[in-house]
C-alpha cells in the first residue's frame, strides 16, 4: 500500500526513525519495533481479504438485514467458506 493512504494511517513516523523515537520506548527498542511492523505490513495481502470485502459488498446488496449480530454471522460464514473452496 502507498504511504498516502489516508489521514488516519498509523506509522506516520516511519521513514525518520532516528528523530522520532518515542521518549518512553527509546531508540533501540523503537527502531526494532518499527522494523518488525514494517516487515509485517509490507507483506502481500492475501486474496481472502479482498475477496471478503467483495463478498460483504455483495451480501449487502443481496439482503439488507437489520440486526448487527445476525449480519455479522451471515456475512462471515460465506466468506470463510469461499476462502478455502472456490466456486
Amino acid at each position, binding site marked *: 500500500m502507498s504511504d498516502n493512504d*489516508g489521514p488516519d494511517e498509523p*506509522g506516520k513516523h516511519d521513514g525518520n526513525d532516528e528523530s522520532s523515537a518515542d521518549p518512553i520506548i527509546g531508540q533501540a*527498542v523503537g527502531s526494532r519495533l518499527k522494523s518488525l511492523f514494517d516487515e509485517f505490513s509490507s507483506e502481500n495481502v492475501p486474496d481472502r*481479504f479482498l475477496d471478503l470485502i467483495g463478498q460483504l459488498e455483495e451480501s449487502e446488496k443481496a439482503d439488507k438485514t437489520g440486526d448487527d449480530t445476525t449480519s455479522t454471522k451471515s456475512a462471515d460464514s460465506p466468506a470463510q467458506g469461499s476462502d478455502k473452496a472456490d466456486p
Partner: protein
Amino acid sequence: MTPSDEVRKGLVTAIPHLRAFAMSLCGRSALADDLVQETLTKAWAKADSYQDGTNLMAWLFTILRNEFYSHLRKRKREVEDVDGAEAAQLVSAPGQMASLELGDFRTALATLPEDQREAIILVGASGFSYEEAADIMGCAVGTVKSRLSRARTRLTELMDGDVPGSTGSV
C-alpha cells in the same frame, strides 16, 4: 448499516496495518489472519457506529484488539494450558539474547505480558499517540505510559542480556 465510502476505502487501506498488528500480537499465524478477517467483518457490520472523519484506523485496531482478547478468553476457558504451551513455543532460546536480531526481537516481544505488548506495538510500531492507544486499550493515558515503560525495561533487559549485573538473568 451501509458503510460509507470512507469506511470501504479505509478497510482496504487498513488491511496491511491490521495484519501487522495482529501478527505483532500473536505471531505470523492463521490466528492473525483470522483476527483480521473477523475485524473486517465486524467493522462492516458495525459501520454505523463509526463516525466519518474520526480516526478510522484506531477504530479498526480497537475492534481487532477486542477480537484478540475475546479469543484469548475463549481459549483460556477451553484449554487452560494452551497459553503456556504457545508461549514456550515462541520463546525458543531464552539463553541467547545477547544481541537481538529481528527474529529474536520478535521472540522477546512475545515474552511480554499482553497489555505491555499491545501498548508498545500501538505506540512504538503503529504510531498511535498515547491518547489514541489509551482509547484503543480502554485505559488511562498514565496506564499506557507505565505499560510502555515496563515493556521497554523488559525488552532492553532481553537485548542487553549480557550487561554486568544481569548475567544469566534471562
